[in-house]
């Protein structure tokens, strides 16, 4: 594809049709179309309502525990011998990941819209846990669709969701992972349109979800700007985050997109390696297509059939990516890299031992690329890594892998 020319601002998307350049849109069944238009209206009304922002602010501060710290990782910095590495500690949020930032926004919106039944899809279970948590907090019915494969490999999160009163539905169709969970959630939504709010966990899906979820997650980047200003008196030089659908990355990146001095890196899951074909790197190994309500880069065959994604990390195991990332890739504002299962596992152990922080396997993909990028940078280079989630949920899986060696 020809790269479009640079826009005046990278932060104006999407347009009124939900497009980021070629990407995004509203590719949904007619049954859902009126709901998506209603949601867009409700979200626009909420955005203009100071009481909604006040409620969000309260929730983020006292329930989620924001702001999350921007932590100077001294020992990691020493280890890599280059850039000063800062970790944005999203794993310290209530429920253990960045997912809660978005869920709070959507649940408060659902309440404004009078919806009492909440559905969600989840991969690693972090979004499911965040949704179950806020549904418990506000007394809403919660149904979480989760691929049967993920139910098996993320057992601790399944139990957490059940403890919180949510119904976890294992999805047996297709590849039994995140994409199938999303299909099943869409089928539920199309059936229960009148009562149900679909709380999407990432910056994907039909417009307005990609923009709305990004807006909710942008708190990460906004705080990072202020905190770095306070710590170092200037902007960071680079940002790095892992990408499945890409919500933690979009949240960190968006407030910096127009700061030309800030280099931005997204890290996709390379699974067994891109050449093996067994990966989840949609931008590196996919092409544009239409799935789950939006046009974006997808892993697929020549007939347009969606291919299985492969990643050690259930949260990155998705054959697509948020449409705004596809656009940022196209226009060249963000560089998209990848990390293999093996590299993520190594980073997982390294950060645990050096910093006393057990990262989620998802976040470990970003940290794996930091191990390569940081040593190439001068010592005054300020690098921010989004530590999007904590790794407690991954310990049984990692223990099993390490024990088998």
């Amino acid at each position, binding site marked *: 594809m020809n790269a479009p020319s640079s826009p005046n601002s990278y932060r104006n998307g999407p347009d009124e*049709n939900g497009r980021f350049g070629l990407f995004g*849109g*509203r*590719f*949904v*069944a*007619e*049954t*859902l*179309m*009126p*709901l998506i238009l209603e949601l867009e209206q409700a979200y626009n009304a909420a955005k203009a309502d100071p009481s909604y922002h006040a409620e969000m602010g309260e929730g983020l501060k006292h329930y989620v525990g924001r702001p999350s710290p921007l932590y100077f990782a001294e020992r990691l910095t020493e280890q890599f011998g280059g850039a000063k590495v800062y970790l944005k500690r999203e794993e310290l949020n209530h429920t253990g990941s960045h997912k809660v930032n978005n869920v709070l926004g959507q649940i408060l919106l659902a309440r404004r819209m009078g919806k009492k039944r909440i559905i969600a899809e989840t991969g690693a279970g972090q979004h499911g846990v965040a949704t179950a948590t806020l549904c418990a907090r506000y007394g809403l019915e919660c149904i979480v669709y989760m691929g049967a494969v993920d139910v098996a490999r993320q057992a601790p999160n399944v139990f957490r969701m059940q403890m919180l009163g949510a119904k976890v539905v294992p999805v047996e*169709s*297709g590849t039994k992972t995140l*994409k*199938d969970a999303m*299909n099943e959630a*869409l*089928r539920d939504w*199309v*059936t*229960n*349109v*009148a009562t149900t709010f679909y709380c999407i966990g990432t910056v994907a899906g039909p417009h307005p979800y990609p923009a709305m979820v990004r807006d909710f997650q942008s708190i990460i980047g906004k705080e990072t700007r202020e905190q770095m200003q306070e710590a170092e008196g200037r902007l960071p030089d680079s940002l790095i985050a892992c990408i499945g659908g890409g919500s933690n990355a979009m949240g960190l990146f968006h407030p910096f997109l127009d700061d030309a001095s800030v280099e931005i890196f997204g890290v996709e899951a390379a699974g067994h390696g891109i050449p093996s074909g067994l990966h989840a790197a949609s931008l590196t190994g996919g*092409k544009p*297509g*239409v*799935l*789950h*309500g939006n*046009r974006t880069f*997808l892993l*697929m065959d*020549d*007939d*347009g*059939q*969606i291919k299985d994604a492969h990643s050690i990390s259930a949260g990155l195991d998705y054959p697509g990516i948020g449409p705004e990332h596809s656009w940022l890739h196209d226009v060249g504002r963000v560089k998209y890299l990848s990390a293999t299962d093996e590299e993520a596992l190594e980073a997982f152990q390294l950060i645990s031992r050096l910093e006393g922080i057990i990262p989620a396997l998802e976040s470990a993909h970003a940290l794996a690329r930091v191990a390569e990028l940081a040593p190439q940078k001068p010592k005054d280079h300020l690098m921010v890594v989004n530590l999007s989630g904590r790794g407690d949920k991954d310990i049984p899986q990692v223990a099993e892998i390490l024990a088998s060696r």
Partner: protein
Amino acid sequence: MTETGQTRIQNRFQACAREGRAALVTFVTAGDPDFETSSAILNALPAAGADVIELGVPFTDPMADGVPVQLAGQRALKAGQTLRKTLAMVESFRRAGHDTPIVLMGYYNPIYVYGVEAFLAEARRVGVDGLIVVDLPPEEDAELCLPALKAGVSFIRLATPTTDDKRLPKVLQNTSGFVYYVSMTGVTGGAIADYGAVGDAVARIKRHTDLPVAVGFGVKTAADAATIAKGADGVVVGSALVERVRLSLDAEGKATEKTVSAVTSLVSELAQGVRSVAKAA
């Protein structure tokens, strides 16, 4: 189009109306359970009583379909069905001399990846009459609907219980051939809750358009078909037919000598169902 300047779809609905009955619209998935058997089913549908054929284009992620159509698509994909093969099936159907209208039904991605212009040219050439693409609402008309109309391929839209009077004109604006009224909010293959509401909805749509209105989602038996046929110009049956395919397969999931007749026998019953009720022409 025929010499009269009418499309095969228009001709067929008008012919059924002259007979004072609703059209029977049958859905089967292309390539289910394999290319040869599926071709045999397709070629047997007109004689069994299908007035219009919806040929499902298999997709890995059919978000608006219930389990029966999901499984049919998985069987077809496993047997190696592609959009190219589906177009080839239509080509041989037309070579066999059938003039039953064929509407391809599915999701946008296989068409998008094939290339919209190339796909429309080929669809038109092999004798595809119309398209139903579930995930292309009017908001995305520039993608495929408008190019299809320009290429002389009908674009049939779904109207649903959530399509209110305000939205209906937008849904109908670029619709051609017929309107497919989805009788419930839900995925294909569910059960119709309220037949009265279906009749009211058809009447409501007809206030906005002169196009024939076919009703589907949840029609399973000749009796269901007869009930719907009273108030609609067409009755769509899909999940019940692909279930017939599934139930006819052997333990390995392969077609048996019963597979084709399992489908055609139900089509014949349904055809009798729509003929059992006279409606005002």
